[in-house]
């Protein structure tokens, strides 16, 4: 047998690479290499976690109960209160878009190029938050266990998708107007998936859930959202340094 790779040693450490066991036992060099890895990974266990007070569980429970009393108010706010805020945020984006577009109209070419960069970064950061919320809905559905019998209640995701659609449309239009083809394309794909979710029944069968998952997977939407998230993070860093 060839000497195991570093990756095989790691898998073996975590109990997943039994095929190299015999080789490690017989080959002195590999045994030494594996023992070095063992020492490193064992030392990671020394990473300390701050101790909690002896009555920690009671404190968590008390805080949860306190929170629970505010839940009714909170849930009303969550389902209705933030809709105008989303619309306002999206409107602000449109105004910003128009503002930046206006600036660009009157400026000379080099300044206009700089404006384009700023405009794109502002849009990226704003859309990043919107995508994060959308991603949570998609991940919930992608990871939901199929209902063993009967149906799965997706009313929360459905409601959220419906609300996200409103802001999604506005962000997409702003991106298209600013000539940001990639963002507009991503938001267009996302809109189709959000529409599917919003138009699904509040309770879905295993087959309907599978269909929704297929829509999410076929469009590769989660991957695209994550890639966009990395761009938004980088851009956020650039914007902060402006």
């Amino acid at each position: 047998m060839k000497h195991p790779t570093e990756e095989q040693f790691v898998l073996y450490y975590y109990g997943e690479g039994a095929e190299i066991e015999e080789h490690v036992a017989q080959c002195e060099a590999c045994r030494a290499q594996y023992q070095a890895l063992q020492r490193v990974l064992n030392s990671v266990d020394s990473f300390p976690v701050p101790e909690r007070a002896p009555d920690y569980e009671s404190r968590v429970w008390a805080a949860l109960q306190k929170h629970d009393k505010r839940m009714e108010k909170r849930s009303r706010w969550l389902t209705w209160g933030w809709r105008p805020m989303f619309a306002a945020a999206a409107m602000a984006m449109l105004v910003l878009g128009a503002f930046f577009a206006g600036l660009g109209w009157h400026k000379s070419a080099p300044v206009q190029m700089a404006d384009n960069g700023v405009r794109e970064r502002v849009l990226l950061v704003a859309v990043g938050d919107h995508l994060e919320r959308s991603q949570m809905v998609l991940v919930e559905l992608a990871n939901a266990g199929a209902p063993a019998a009967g149906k799965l209640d997706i009313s929360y995701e459905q409601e959220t998708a419906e609300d996200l659609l409103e802001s999604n449309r506005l962000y997409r239009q702003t991106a298209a107007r600013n000539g940001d083809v990639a963002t507009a394309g991503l938001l267009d794909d996302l809109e189709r998936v959000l529409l599917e979710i919003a138009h699904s029944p509040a309770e879905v069968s295993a087959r309907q859930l599978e269909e929704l998952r297929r829509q999410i997977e076929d469009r590769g939407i989660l991957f695209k959202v994550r890639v966009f998230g990395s761009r938004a993070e980088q851009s956020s860093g650039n914007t902060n340094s402006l």
Partner: protein
Amino acid sequence: MEDSDSVAVARVKAGDGDAYRALVDRHSRSVFRLAYRMTGNEQDAEDVVQETFLRAYKQLHRYEARASFGTWLYRIASNYSLDLVRSRKRHPQTALEESAAPGEEAGNAIHGIASDTPGPDRLLFGDEVQRTVAATLGRLSQQERTAFVLRHFEGQSIEEIGSSLGLSGNATKHSIFRAVQKLRRALEPLVT
């Protein structure tokens, strides 16, 4: 433990809200440990504990006893920790303002573990290996750190981690390998 969790879950589903306390009692410390390892920040870890139990309560009707309650709960906790770390990265200014205690240097509050300057918590580590482990974990990418913490400390399978992170099995393995390589580079001179 799993049996008694199932009993408590069944009671909560049947309308006995107080039965949820048994689940909080059994799992809050381990959720805190997971959250702290993932976020590297004590206050964030506390937020994760609260939010995890609230989300779990709200979504309990979805929990089907195929996986253990603990596994399901830790998945909620790790997903929320990940969201929190992402949002902290995206809004560094806000996070600094929120996290810095009076008189505390803001940079330490947000970078915590990754910072080169020891904060009060880190001074308690007292040991070079512990400091190096903490600093290296703090320098890993979010994906590497999450995948590594879930594999090393939580013992989750590659498949479970991939499912939480939305990654393929290979991508999950590579995240773990990269994390191990970085830890190895930093720790080998100290431990060998």
